[in-house]
């Protein structure tokens, strides 16, 4: 019985350290900061790494070229904004005023090069849109 306990304890220690190691290694690889535009621009240390930025697409300076798979636009934070160039398939829900999340890093020209562009949840967006349309009704 005691020998069994010892064996189990050793097995548990081995397994848990292995998982702990994997988790640590995975965490350093899979980790990305999720920031708004203001916090990103305020801290230079973010600007040297790959991050995820959330914000709203500015109505001005929006250039969409779906056939060429590029979109360039200004991403609005609470008070500041940043230029984004995205290469890839443009999501159906992407448009001026949409809440989006982009992932990528800053290039030498100070433009954020994004390779991932996500628009926020369709159902939530629809509900807001719906509320707006309701208000417009007589």
């Amino acid at each position: 019985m005691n020998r069994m306990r010892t064996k189990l304890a050793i097995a548990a220690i081995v397994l848990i350290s292995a998982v702990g190691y994997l988790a640590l290694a995975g965490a350093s690889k899979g980790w990305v900061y999720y920031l708004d535009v203001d916090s990103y621009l305020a801290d230079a240390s973010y600007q040297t790494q790959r991050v995820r930025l959330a914000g709203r697409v500015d109505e001005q300076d929006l250039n969409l070229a779906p056939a060429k798979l590029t979109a360039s636009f200004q991403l609005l934070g609470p008070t500041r904004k940043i230029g984004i160039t995205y290469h890839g398939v443009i999501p159906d829900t992407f448009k001026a005023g949409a809440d989006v999340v982009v992932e990528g890093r800053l290039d030498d020209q100070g433009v954020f090069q994004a390779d991932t562009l996500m628009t926020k949840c369709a159902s939530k967006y629809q509900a807001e849109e719906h509320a707006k349309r309701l208000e417009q009704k007589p």
Partner: protein
Amino acid sequence: MTALTGDAVLSMALLVAAGTLLAAMLNVRAARWMLWAYTVLILGAGAVLLTALLQSNFKLIYVAQYTERALPTAYKMAAFWAGQQGSLLLWAILLAVMSAVAAVQWRGRSAREQTAALAVLAVTNGFFAALMLFVRDADPFTAYAVGKTPADGFGLNPLLQNPSMIAHPLLLFVGYAGFTVPFAMLAGALAGGERSDAWLVTARKWLLFSWLFLSVGILLGAQWAYVELGWGGYWAWDPVENASLLPWLTATAVLHSIGLQLQRGMFRRWNAALIGTSFILCILATYITRSGAIQSVHAFGDSLVGPVFLGFLLLSIITVVGLLAWRWQLLEPKHTLERLVGKEGAFLAVNVLLVLITIVTMYGTMHPVLAGLFKENPGSYGPEFYNHVVVPLGLLLVALMSVGPLLIIGSEAGKTLLQGMIIPGVLSVIAIGVTVVMGVHNVYALLCVALTVFTFVNVLRGLLKAAIDRMKLHDEGLALALLRALDGDHRRYGGQTVHLGMILIVVGVTGSSLFSDKQELSMKAGDSVQVAGFTVRYDGMEQLRHANFTAFDAAVTLTDAAGNSSVLHPQVRYYDKSEQPNSEVALLTNLKRDIYITLAGWEDNGKLAAIQIIVNPLLLWIWIGSVVLTLGGTLCLLPRLCPQRQADHVKVTLPVGLGSCQTPAMEQTS
């Protein structure tokens, strides 16, 4: 009027649920009848909503928000669970129906046991009824103010207009709600001071049933994401996906170790904890989906439903922990683990691995919420985190699965295992050799090939051996002997079929994640490119009108090396009631690979188009594996088809279950 009727029925249902709770303390018979009455009422509420949806009664905000007149009837029905309020009602209905069935099964149990079990059901059912009645965002029967009724509805989100989306939430919710029943039974057994494990026979069927529905629900969700979302994948480690995986993992664990509890009285504390945890995780999954606490593609946005759910979640956790602490002594195992090699050790390992995967997945999923309490920019874990941790643990699980049929209990376990590994081991090495010669050198891919061959050889050899034994013993032909052997132990062979399904899914996942190739091309009409051995030609675009949308339809011709060509039609659809376009993927699928094409954009009426082509090798095997897994799970649940021949089987009276399959495992517990 409809709104009033609906809310009135809901109010009555809530009163009856409260009555059930009260009656459970006084007279279980009365409580049972009240639970049935509750079920009838909540079904009535469902009928009111369904009728309103089918009749396009836009006085109800829910109906207007999720349907329109032109919507096909099937989608009008599916709109029942397209939004938050309807899905809560669906949850409530499914739970009520399953509770009603469970109450029938429990008639013979002791009064104390029934009291606790019925109380758990009454509280859980009542919670949903109360939620819909008292939280404004949760009531499906909210009506527009007089005179504000719109002429037509706003339509169903185009992303949800897909056949998988009709079935996916329904099946998932059967799974979620289903785990309430085994938990109620556990609560009954613990509160009633039940020493025997006989109740587990029925509980296991409920676990298996809910597990099966949850599995199919998750897989259909993956299939929906694949064909509808247009990014070429099926699983993104998104919080809502993870949430559905959590109870699946713990339920999978308990389904393995429950057999040893019934046979030998082992793992009793483990199993009780896992049944309780699965219930909690189902509530957590609903919370994550409904609360908007975690950024996700599917979550339904902020509302008061979240905090209320959180309260119920805390109540569930307190109940589970309290019950276990109170009856810890009662759950003393009758046997302890004697050796690590063999069936007992393997099942322990399976459980530990599944629980570790659960913890890691939960940590990754909940981290943004928990860290968000202390830090402003908590960040989040991407798929790499999960792939890094879960994939190695998953491979260990697959390795255990591959030797499954060789595992026995007892001192011979080690010897049997080693001897049994020789033939499949040799065949696996040969398979690795052949794969390397064919030009695949990726370690994960080779490991996957070896494990697949190993598992299949073991399972098929085990079945064949059982059939040959029967042929000798009963003088039967091979086919009959195979069928009889299969029929002789549904749970064994059903379980192994589930394993084969899992292995096929692993094959598909490995192929499509290691060797996927994505190209985004800007093509003029008439342009051709070479992709994965195919010539891909963009032919041009036309505009098509359907019942409730207009489609821009691109024609893309794929020609393979042998000259066979097929035309695919990726589309972008503009639904009348939706402001945003919706991409419709075109797929050319076969056993070797999927070619997945989306139309990403165009200029000049389609003279220039952006086309995304993704090649996903072996992806079809995920869906084939899903079907095999479903068949295996169903086999486990089916009662025996042929009457038993051996007279040496002791007959035992079992509580009425979902079927009454008798195996030696059950007899030992009686």
